[in-house]
């Protein structure tokens, strides 16, 4: 007989549901309740590309130690979808638990001796209490939350308090919801052995953090950062970003006198149009952005090249997902990096920002609007489904009221009067960035014709080769300027560098502290660097320089960040060891730990503990 897992504030719970059955809000409530009890947790929605009927899962990693990357193996499975019972049972760790609706018996053939099965006759309990079929369906989810409250010791007031908040203004709904919770709780109390050996306990693990998804965070960043024109085309997992912007802007961006909008949101006919609108608005002086995912970014290629060459500010968020067409649109990946970095034909390269947390989504959205105008070029914020759509515990957002938007080099009418020899693409400051003018500024001065590359420093049409080349060299200078302006890499390194290091970015960051700690236990001690922008700053190359071998951890098949490092930094590929994960699920510490440990084993490298005293 396997010993049941014992754990307080350290386990993984997974809910298996049917899409469209209202489980998402109940599961979200579960996670938020733990967060409000001060317990660090990381909810992850694993959903199909479907509106109703297909299986869907929701995983919550609970970790008082603050390990919020994904962890393999499930301690407690809430199996509410009979169709996926077989898979769901298989995922439970030996000694784990499985909660199911015992109105119908759990198939004998699927039972496991090393798993504790907990039956709650949810459908039956509901049947007696509620008559409306829709309510019966919805409240099933609330009933299991009630049972879990008892089994795991979730504070009751936290749960009911959340229901009261949620139904503020619709008080009639509070009673039935609380009743559903009680049904679950009472059944567990009366008929089950509680609490379970795994459970939760209030702690002080979240401080003043907030629990928010990256898409909403970025949308708020754009709002605070002064974006006025948003153009987008619906695509999972980016849709909620544009929707959040519109929703919050409708409240926070009204002209107090007229009630009219100080923003425009356009749902375009496709992504080509969305990026075209952003470029048109940027050309005309408005801060503008679009949000999309891989398929949209693919469509935007030609326009991104135009914005690069014509030097027009534009901001784009790519909430990355796996693969094209149908298949894995609702799974996460970091697989658009190369597509974004070198988007479009001709010699192009683009500035990328790589946030890891919702706070960084907010900050980088603001930063991107500044950088786009400063550098007069597209800025792409690369997030992914995991960061964009799942709630994450994040430091709260901050705003300094003294902060001013950096509108970049724009000559107004007075400026035009003063400048003697103005040319749109003249590099007068030596940073590769010219002074631009906006339409409508001056009756006589400053007008120019915007086009691709066939123009000289004064924006006059020319097809002369040496002028084209000169322009390309200036763009290269601007690229060097960009490398000094993007967010610096975050480096963790002792006073003395260790022989090897790891590089990672974006959502590969959350599992890293856990992975590095586990590797250290095995005698593999590594320095680490989280890259936050492209072009890479000098500190990135210096970190690599200081280490014999560096592992590059990312969520794609081809090692795209590694390729960028090799191409841009002219680094010997042998020194950069790829650690790759690309099954569409968020990265876990175990994957990192395994691959790095295997590498050391295969290389038969001496453990660091063997060489360092």
């Amino acid at each position, binding site marked *: 007989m396997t010993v049941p897992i014992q754990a307080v504030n350290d386990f993984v719970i997974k809910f298996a549901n049917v899409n469209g059955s209202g489980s998402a809000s109940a599961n979200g409530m579960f996670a938020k309740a733990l967060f409000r009890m001060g317990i660090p947790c990381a909810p992850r929605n694993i959903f199909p590309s479907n509106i109703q009927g297909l299986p869907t899962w929701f995983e919550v990693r609970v970790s008082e130690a603050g390990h919020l990357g994904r962890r393999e193996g499930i301690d407690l499975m809430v199996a509410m979808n009979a169709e996926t019972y077989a898979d769901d049972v298989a995922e439970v760790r030996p000694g784990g638990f499985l909660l199911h609706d015992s109105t119908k018996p759990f198939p004998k053939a699927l039972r496991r001796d090393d798993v504790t099965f907990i039956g709650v006759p949810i459908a039956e309990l509901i049947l007696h209490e509620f008559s409306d079929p829709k309510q019966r369906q919805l409240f099933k989810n609330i009933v299991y939350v009630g049972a879990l409250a008892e089994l795991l010791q979730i504070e009751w007031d936290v749960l009911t308090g959340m229901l009261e908040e949620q139904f503020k203004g619709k008080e009639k709904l509070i009673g039935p919801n609380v009743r559903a919770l009680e049904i679950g709780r009472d059944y567990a109390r009366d008929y089950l052995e509680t609490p379970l050996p795994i459970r939760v306990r209030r702690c002080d693990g979240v401080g003043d953090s907030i629990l928010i998804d990256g898409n909403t965070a970025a949308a708020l960043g754009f709002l605070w950062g002064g974006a006025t024109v948003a153009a987008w085309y619906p695509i999972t997992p980016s849709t909620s970003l544009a929707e959040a912007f519109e929703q919050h802007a409708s409240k926070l961006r009204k002209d107090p006198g007229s009630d009219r909008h100080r923003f425009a949101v356009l749902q375009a006919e496709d992504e080509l*149009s969305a990026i075209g609108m952003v470029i048109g608005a940027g*050309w005309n002086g*408005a801060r503008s952005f679009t949000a999309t995912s891989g398929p949209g970014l693919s469509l935007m290629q030609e326009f991104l090249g135009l914005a690069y060459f014509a030097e027009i500010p534009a901001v784009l968020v790519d909430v990355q997902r796996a693969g094209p067409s149908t298949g894995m649109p609702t799974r996460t990946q970091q697989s658009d990096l190369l597509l974004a970095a070198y988007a479009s034909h001709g010699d192009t390269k683009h500035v990328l920002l790589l946030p890891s947390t919702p706070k960084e989504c907010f900050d980088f959205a603001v930063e991107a609007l500044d950088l786009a105008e400063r550098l007069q070029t597209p800025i792409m914020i690369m997030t992914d489904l995991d960061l964009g759509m799942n709630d994450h515990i994040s430091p709260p957002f901050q705003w300094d009221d003294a902060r001013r938007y950096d509108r970049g080099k724009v000559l107004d009418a007075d400026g035009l009067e003063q400048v003697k020899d103005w040319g749109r693409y003249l590099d007068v400051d030596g940073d590769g960035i010219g002074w631009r003018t906006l*339409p409508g500024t001056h009756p006589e001065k400053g007008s120019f014709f915007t086009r691709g590359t066939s123009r000289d420093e004064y924006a006059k049409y020319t097809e002369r080769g040496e002028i084209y080349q000169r322009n390309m060299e200036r763009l290269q200078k601007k690229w060097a300027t960009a490398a000094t302006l993007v967010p610096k890499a975050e480096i963790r390194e002792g006073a003395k560098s260790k022989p090897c290091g790891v590089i990672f970015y974006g959502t590969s960051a959350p599992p890293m502290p856990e992975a590095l700690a586990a590797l250290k236990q095995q005698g593999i001690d590594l320095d680490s660097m989280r890259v936050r922008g492209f072009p890479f700053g000098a500190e990135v190359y210096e970190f690599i320089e200081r280490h014999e071998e560096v592992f590059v951890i990312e969520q794609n098949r081809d090692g795209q960040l590694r390729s960028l490092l090799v191409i841009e930094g002219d680094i010997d590929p042998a020194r950069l060891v790829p650690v790759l994960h690309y099954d569409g699920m968020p990265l876990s510490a175990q994957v990192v730990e395994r691959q790095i440990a295997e590498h050391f084993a295969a290389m038969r490298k001496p453990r660091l503990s063997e060489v360092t005293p």
Partner: protein
Amino acid sequence: MTFVAKPKTHHPKLPRNELGLTRRDYEGAVSTLCAGCGHDSVSAAIIQACHELSIPAHRVAKLSGIGCSSKTPTYFLGKSHGFNSVHGRMPSVATGANMANRELYYIGISGDGDSASIGLGQFAHIVRRRINMTYVVDNNGTYGLTKGQFSATNDKGSTSKKGVPNLYEPIDLAMMAIQIGATFVARSFSGDKEQLVPLLKAALKHEGFAFLDVISPCVAFNNHNGSTKSYEYVRGHSSALALADLIPTRDAIEVDYAPGAAEDVAMPDGSTLRLRKLRDDYDPRNRVTAMDTLMRMNEKGEIVTGLLFLDDDPSDCHEILGTVDEPLASLGEAELCPGSERLETINAAFR
């Protein structure tokens, strides 16, 4: 190509508009299109319309896609900002620009390839969104810049320069525009200044989406027997025309005909293009009548010209979205940033 640069000196007797400017002040760079290209006549008409309306040139933004037609914004209003964007996507760029600053005049120039093929989707959607602008298609029934392929406005049965017949139905952009909500739709002929200039002036003054489909012959690639949208200049020169790089020099065709009348425009190849000017008593304020008129004329093989449809009280996209009067691009931190206190309430809502 027109190599002769126009002298920049002002003739003292040139008429001045309310701003004290002459027509010359509205000109652009010297055109590099083929001599006699209809598109240059359209540019000339735009210059005249803006001058006569005393529009300050710097308050105009000119946008275009790609094509010979889309090159033309360089050749008018030299004091305006211009944007030669990418093929077929001028509508989205114009939409974004217009969202950023509702106070400027917007002139969009496109071709039939640009708007009816690669850009048909964007064309349809800018019409729906009612962006306040003047949208001109220089319609020559061919792809000028890529040397003479069929465009989607080409009539079925007409033949290309290589003698291949067009097998597909034409797209009538004016008809489409009327159907999906344009509030000003007109059709004209590049060489009919008397008609085109007043239409352009009305379009510029229209506070909504104004569309002009301007038949604008291509002298280089649609000047062969069998084309229904162009003319060959000198019939006896067809042997010379076999040389692909020899483009005959010619003067632009001009027409001048009365309302209600038909005008047969002589095709260089002997075929004719029959234009029918709308009668003075035609009431453009009815969408159904406009569509009906277009279809009946099409049936007769006539190209109806004039103001086809007008909504006197148009709404534009800013009205639809309820944006403020000031240009969005002009707003700063004070108007745009909700500030630190509001952000604290946002933080609190996510705890």
